């Protein structure tokens, strides 16, 4: 897939620094990309993504901060599961890969790229280089498989370099490279205990497959060597004992490819964002909450917003603030796209209520007004007026 630009524009970085202001930053990663995938049609979210604004923390301290934090027990479980796979020279990882893939991993070379590298951009660049080199070795058909724990793949996201860390990458399994993800939620009776988490994990793995194929392609190696059948390692039943599952993600790979193509170019955004737009005031904790939320409303007014509760509330830290703006504007989008799409030409929810009472529509409202008025008439015909006794005492 070709991008419109291969080199980042240095001026764009400066412009986006201004857009970000003092708002907390976030490094692009596979989860951030997946979250952006859900809201990529929103101009405000697109600018925040391009400017690397951490939307989950930008509104910290206000009533509109969406609580995305995790239980320390849940994090502890994840950390413990990874530690279990790594301990005693990755004994558990070797065992589960051997059992699950039918290839002997007992003497496989396992390189832990999470250790020995600086936890910064330099370290990530080096890890990406090692990953690329090891992947290229597939051509030489290594006698024993190689496992990269914490492989790093480099990608161009909207014109800026980003690094993505895969949990495992098993190289040289029957001439293929297999991408693996570790998750600490259990599988019981062959079924995941959290289906949404399964979907998210497979999406992550698909991203690594795509980036791995691109890396091979750039190295002049057949990209098809990265298998579309990924590996998911999870605990089985009530303990942490790992079990391996294989799943084909080719369909998801195509989706991720479309998504990456849809990520706006940073330079285009930098050029199009008015100079007045900055997330600085939104994240300024010295300001009163009202001023921060007002600043947010001004930005979304200027840039535009697309509020879709199902995706925004699970993926964007601005969702509650955005919902507040949508309500304030009487925007039909408040309960989601189907309702908004049923109201072409109707400016506000207040007007919907009037049309539902039979108010004469304007020319632009006419197509939507007829079913609304009919709905109002049919509902009023069958519903007893008033609901005595339901209001709570003041």
């Amino acid at each position, binding site marked *: 897939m070709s991008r419109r630009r291969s080199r980042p524009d240095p001026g764009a970085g400066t412009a986006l620094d201004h857009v970000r202001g003092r708002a907390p930053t976030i490094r692009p990663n596979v989860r951030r990309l997946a979250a952006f995938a859900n809201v990529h049609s929103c101009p405000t979210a697109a600018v925040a993504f391009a400017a690397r604004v951490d939307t989950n923390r930008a509104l910290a301290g206000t009533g509109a901060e969406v*609580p995305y934090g*995790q239980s320390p027990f849940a994090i502890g479980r994840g950390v413990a599961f990874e530690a279990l796979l790594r301990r005693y020279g990755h004994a558990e990882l070797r065992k589960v890969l051997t059992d699950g893939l039918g290839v002997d991993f007992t003497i496989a070379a396992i390189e832990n790229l999470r250790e020995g590298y600086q936890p910064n951009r330099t370290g990530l660049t080096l890890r990406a280089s090692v990953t690329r080199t090891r992947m290229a070795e597939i051509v030489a058909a290594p006698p024993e498989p190689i496992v990269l724990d914490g492989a790093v793949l480099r990608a161009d996201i909207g014109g800026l370099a980003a690094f993505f860390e895969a949990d495992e990458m098993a190289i040289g399994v029957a001439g293929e490279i297999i991408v693996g993800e570790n998750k600490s939620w259990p599988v019981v*009776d062959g079924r995941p205990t959290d289906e949404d988490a399964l979907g998210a994990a497979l999406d992550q793995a698909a991203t690594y497959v795509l980036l791995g194929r691109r890396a091979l392609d750039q190295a002049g190696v057949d990209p098809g060597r990265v298998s579309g059948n990924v590996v998911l390692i999870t605990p089985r039943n009530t303990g942490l004992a790992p079990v391996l599952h294989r799943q084909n993600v080719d369909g998801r790979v195509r989706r991720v490819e479309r998504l990456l193509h849809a990520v706006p170019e940073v330079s285009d955004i930098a050029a199009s964002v008015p100079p007045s737009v900055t997330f600085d005031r939104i994240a300024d904790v010295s300001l009163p909450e009202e001023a921060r939320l007002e600043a947010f409303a001004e930005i979304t007014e200027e840039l535009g917003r697309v509020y879709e509760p199902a995706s925004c509330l699970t993926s964007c830290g601005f969702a509650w603030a955005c919902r507040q703006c949508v309500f304030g504007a009487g925007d039909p989008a408040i*309960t989601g796209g189907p309702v908004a799409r049923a109201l072409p030409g109707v400016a506000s929810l207040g007007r919907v209520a009037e049309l539902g009472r039979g108010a004469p529509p304007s020319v632009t409202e006419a197509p939507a007004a007829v079913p609304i008025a009919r709905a109002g008439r049919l509902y009023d015909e069958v519903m007893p007026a008033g609901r005595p006794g339901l209001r709570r005492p003041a």
Partner: protein
Amino acid sequence: MSTALDALFVGRIYDSGRAMRRTTLRHTHLADQPLGIAMWRLGGERFRAAAIAWGPLGGPFELAVAGEPRNRDLYFAALAPFAADLCLRVRSAADAKVARQRGRRTELLPAGALQVVVPNRTTVGALGLLGRYLAYLSDRGGVTPDPALIEAGKHLRFYARHARVPGQALLLPLDRLVAEHWATLLSPFEQANLAALDAQIEPPAGTHAFHASAAAEALARIGPEPTEDIDRVTDALLAEFNTARGGSTDPAVVEPLARPLRDHYRRLIEPVWQLMDHAVARERRLPAAPSVQRRFEGDREAFGRHVDWMAGGGRYRTTDTPRQAAMTLRRLEDALARYDADKAVEDAACMVPYLLDGDAVRGVVASVNEHRVVARVRSVRRALMTLDTDDPAVLPAHKRLWWTATAHDHPWEVQAVQPHGLGSRITLMLDAAPTPARLPGAGDRVTLSVLHTRPDAYRLAPPLEAPWTHRPALPPPLPEPIDTGDAEPPSAAVDGTALPDPGRYT
């Protein structure tokens, strides 16, 4: 659901500041005193109920807190009273039987069935997993687990699986019940929060439903999955508890030490309990639809079969065979179609979406006449009805529609549709011999729709042997214990702020 009706609801709720009723009737059975269950898990631990509260709604609740739920001995000791009480209630409910005549066969059905009410659908899933864990426990160190735990596990598993049946009332998640009866400004994702739903229906005086639900959403914690703030407190209390007990599982030692954790969870559960009680009391004020009792009879039948099966050991498959899966899917689809039809036929408010979508027509009967027509080879009596609808109707010839008064009987077939005033004149022919009960009178206002409540046809059971396309490589495993790993030492809690990328463990 019609988008026009949804749009109307959103507009009116925005305008009035309060949620609106979707139905005029209650379509779910509510027992006089259902058993309420609310629970909190430890974050990320799918099988560990850190606290479980139960008791008849309307009264106080019992609370079981294990202290350290990842310790099998402490966990099972805490769950034992809950398990014993649940088993007792199930057995008591199944004790009294009533006879039901089916043709020449007389069946005995439980006179009642234990109804369980939980705050949300997530709790249904959590109870199902807890049931799966407890239903098949292995011996540990030569000690057989408490039989009440195993029995309770099987009950919970049955309840959670039965909760998939549309319209069932054995295990009732209140978020679903309330969202079915009320239109709000909340999207389906937001409706999972019972407190937000409740706030939209009964906001404090002078507060718009939107602001009330946003405030409730930010503050209310419903469970069972804890948020970060809750588990930070739990973590501190649990660390103190574990240090103080020094590895002891002796109830005399542990009981007083667990008091701070019990207080912590009591504070969390009390508002949830009140909310559940309030929601049930409000929904109970709606009159029950006529079909509620029939659906609950189906629930009692399933409950009775389960209790009978339990008497024989109660081993259930944990993975369906392809045949079981196909039969279950068909059963659930049939139940959904019947539930939708029951609601719309009995409740005029539930028919509105079908009228808006063109799947139903309403109007005044202009005339009903009897004719003789040739059906196949014989000349038979048939009724012809002309119906003047309020709104223009677009219906293809031969479309079959059921009059709501005879939705269990034969349909009417569309013969012709012509413009008539602001609406249409539809000519329909009854697909059976006319009888007085099957015919509306001239001048009656009637509704006909595609919905009916009679069985479509006799359905043959699928073949005993699945076709090769659906035959798994290995037969489904027999039920097996999943508790092998529950003796592992618990993982240490980790503060996400101390990690460079805590999102990795999402």
